[in-house]
């Protein structure tokens, strides 16, 4: 899933205070799972904003809605009237949803309530961890299913570096060394020998280095 965290309240308040009529729009998919922008979080943010407005003498009017996904066109139909009736939309989706909502409603100001972080998994409730960097050329087959691009702070394909200690990354002692994980996994799989193979320079043009990504599949086009 795409993970995100809510922006600091004051930053959100400054963004929306002059909006007049505001629609807080939640997203029912990834950011609901990572507890950042689902229906429950929409309610909490709306209540906090209303209380802050009352305290600070603002007349901001706030509506709430949550749709299944903000990254697909058809899910916006049920809230179309609400979006059009608002002066601004505070989207609690990831950056994709914020931009897509903005594209769909030309002339409508769509503001982000969240900081989008990474593609990750729920390790336990309240703890999410990155697993994929979306590099566009998956190498998981060569590293026992542990991604050196996402899980090594230096994205080393021929690791490890010399900075890891006791299986932890030098960047942060809370982070497992990606290469320790790769070594342990390959060892368990009996594939350690294949780690001796030197990995060639990776083609990064399928990731961020290649500019904004685009996929076109004529076989599924209508």
């Amino acid at each position: 899933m795409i993970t995100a965290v809510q922006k600091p309240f004051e930053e959100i308040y400054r963004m929306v205070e002059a909006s007049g009529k505001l629609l807080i729009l939640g997203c029912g998919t990834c950011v609901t799972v990572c507890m950042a922008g689902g229906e429950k979080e929409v309610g909490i943010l709306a209540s906090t904003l209303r209380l802050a407005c009352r305290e600070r003498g603002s007349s901001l009017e706030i509506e709430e809605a949550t749709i299944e996904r903000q990254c697909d066109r058809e899910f916006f139909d049920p809230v179309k009237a609400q979006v059009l009736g608002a002066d601004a939309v505070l989207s609690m989706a990831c950056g994709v949803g914020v931009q897509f909502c903005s594209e769909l409603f030309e002339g409508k100001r769509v503001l982000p309530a969240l900081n989008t972080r990474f593609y990750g998994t729920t390790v336990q409730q309240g703890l999410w961890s990155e697993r994929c960097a979306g590099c566009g050329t998956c190498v998981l087959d060569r590293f026992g299913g542990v991604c050196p691009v996402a899980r090594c702070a230096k994205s080393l394909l021929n690791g490890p570096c010399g900075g890891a200690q006791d299986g932890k990354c030098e960047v942060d002692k809370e982070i497992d060394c990606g290469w320790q994980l790769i070594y342990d996994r390959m060892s368990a799989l009996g594939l350690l020998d294949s780690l001796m193979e030197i990995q060639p320079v990776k083609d990064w043009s399928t990731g961020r280095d290649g500019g904004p990504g685009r996929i076109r599949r004529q076989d599924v086009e209508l």
Partner: protein
Amino acid sequence: MEKKKIVAFCCENSSLKAAEALSDPSLLEAVEIVALPCLGKIEIGLVLKCLEKGHPGVLVLGCPLDNCQYLRGNYRAVKRVERVRQLLGEAGLDESRVRMDFLSSLDSHRLAEILQGIKRSEA
């Protein structure tokens, strides 16, 4: 318009029983009681909604720590109350509008003190 009261979220296994055993039941008029099967059911949004609706404060009353029938319910409630208080602070409101206390079913005398305190502060 009728003046809104402080909302008291009470665990059915402890503070609600303490409330039922009060020697002076009229003290309960100081609050609006909401019974919960366990304090672990308390939701951040629910507490904020009470304040948003105009209730002057929220009282969250659960079992003594380490004495929850469902083991961790009151610890979970502690975290949520802390988060609510943090949100109130960020919004510029007095964090003490949300209070938490831990009462066993035998602590009617302590509940009476809390309710008397509310009555005094409103007088």
